[in-house]
């Protein structure tokens, strides 16, 4: 019975926690500029995320180690310094973007400039982390995040053509601006498969003391939660495509993105959009901050747990506090949250091979996963998609940036 409750809670909170600043902005821009045409990218990204999170849970259950700890032991510090540095930089950029996104959400609700609300929001995130257990961080915010289902509801109310939607799951070439199209496809993958999610999920499996006999819960939660969660990101894209594209509105800011809710929800449009964006961003900010604590503690061998007293894990508690302060400082300086988001998610795809490929090696090492190694097909799919994605990103990002 407990396993069933864990499964339902896991799937529901995964749906609620699926979208955040990156997936909302990339899906909204894709819909506004290319209609339904990039739905396939969301489907591929969600499948990749489902495979990777299932693996990270399986690794923790079988090896009793979180992902970062296993990488340190298997590959040593000389190798790990590269993915560690990359993940810390990405975590900082993404956390800044999430705080900015939450600030924009408050601005939409109250009219107060987002830079004025960044510090109170960061204090709120820190307070939740400081006073709560892991379960509150993961499940509490995930349940609140169910408000993001309003994107699915909006898309359903607008009545998209089922045939058009189905055809969009097959990759096709765009009628205009191929570089931008490829950049958005890469960004969707980067926004969905955020590196912090893998170590966070792996650490969470240890926090929740999942056992080998519960591996089926891990599999069902990761596949079910991510595939249903992807429907929310698809809801953003479809709503944006049906509302913003006919009006030739490009999403240059979150305020413009909020317009996509007007035909479906009328006077509630801005409130619902702001709540979806705000809760999604706060949930992601909590996870990224906590993940930085997990990451550093596991690499350097400090004691860690969100379920223990904060003073018993002083270095872990300090680590998540410091990254939050650093991200708040950058956010207050006034970076455009949307631009920062797009840079972070695109860079994610470039560095993905140094994170995913060693992970695949671990998942085939019986010292760590015993008899639960990956299948050759799973290895091939993930390695292929990761390398192709990184190659595309290396070509497309300079073209997009220098081409304006």
């Amino acid at each position, binding site marked *: 019975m407990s396993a069933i409750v864990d499964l339902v809670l896991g799937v529901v909170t995964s749906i609620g926690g699926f979208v955040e600043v990156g997936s909302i902005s990339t899906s909204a821009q894709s819909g506004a500029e290319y209609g339904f045409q990039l739905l396939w990218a969301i489907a591929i990204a969600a499948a990749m995320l489902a495979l990777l999170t299932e693996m990270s849970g399986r690794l923790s259950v079988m090896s*009793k*180690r979180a992902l970062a*700890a296993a990488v*340190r*032991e298997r590959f*040593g*510090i*000389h190798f790990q*310094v590269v993915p560690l540095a990359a993940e810390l930089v990405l975590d900082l950029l993404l956390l800044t973007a999430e705080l900015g996104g939450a600030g924009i959400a408050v601005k939409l609700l109250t009219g107060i400039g987002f830079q004025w609300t960044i510090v109170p929001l960061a204090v709120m995130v820190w307070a939740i982390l*400081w*006073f709560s257990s892991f379960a509150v961080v993961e499940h509490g915010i995930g349940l609140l995040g169910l408000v993001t289902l309003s994107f699915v509801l909006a898309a359903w109310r607008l009545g998209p053509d089922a045939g058009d939607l189905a055809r969009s799951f097959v990759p096709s070439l765009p009628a205009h601006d191929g570089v931008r199209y490829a950049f958005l496809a890469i960004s969707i993958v980067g926004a969905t498969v955020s590196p912090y999610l893998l170590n966070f999920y792996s650490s969470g499996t240890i926090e929740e003391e999942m056992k080998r006999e519960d591996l089926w819960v891990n599999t069902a939660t990761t596949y079910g939660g991510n595939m249903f969660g992807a429907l929310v990101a698809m809801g953003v894209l479809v709503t944006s495509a049906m509302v913003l594209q006919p009006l030739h509105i490009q999403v240059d800011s979150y305020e413009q993105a909020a317009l996509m809710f007007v035909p479906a929800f009328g006077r509630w449009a801005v409130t619902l959009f702001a709540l979806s964006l705000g809760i999604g961003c706060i949930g992601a900010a909590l996870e990224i901050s906590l993940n930085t604590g997990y990451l550093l503690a596991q690499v*350097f*061998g*400090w*004691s*860690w747990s969100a379920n223990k*007293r*904060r*003073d018993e894990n*002083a*270095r872990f*508690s*300090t680590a998540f506090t410091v990254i939050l302060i650093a991200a708040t400082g950058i956010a207050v300086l006034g970076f455009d949250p949307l631009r920062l988001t797009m840079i972070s998610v695109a860079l994610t795809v470039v560095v993905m091979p140094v994170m995913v490929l060693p992970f695949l090696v671990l998942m085939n090492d019986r010292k760590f996963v015993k008899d639960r190694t990956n299948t050759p097909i799973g290895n091939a799919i993930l390695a292929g998609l990761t390398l192709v994605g990184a190659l595309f990103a290396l070509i497309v990002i300079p073209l997009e940036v220098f081409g304006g």
Partner: protein
Amino acid sequence: MHLVRDLLDKAVIDRNGREMGRADRVVLEVGRGSPPRVAAIEVGASALGQRLGPGWGRWAAALLHGFGVDHGQPLRIHVSQILGVTDTIAVDLAFGQTPAANVECKLRRIIRVLPGADR
């Protein structure tokens, strides 16, 4: 025993099961006419930094010195203090009584000023 696979970078646990850090460096003893043997393991950022490069080692040592960690030197655990090597390296020490705990203890004193730190 394979030094790199079985010892280096493994988690080091004290006699109470508390994490002390990782085996950041292995110290070998080379005697005349005899094969090298493991003399100790070292735990600490300065040992880890030395592995990455002398500059990193000096920087880490200076940082730790600032925190009052035994002049920035790593904690050297003699091989006779190693209780066993499994998934972790268990050692016959109490983390809180070693200089390696200085950073943790200093941060703990700061953290305890904040409300909710002992929840």
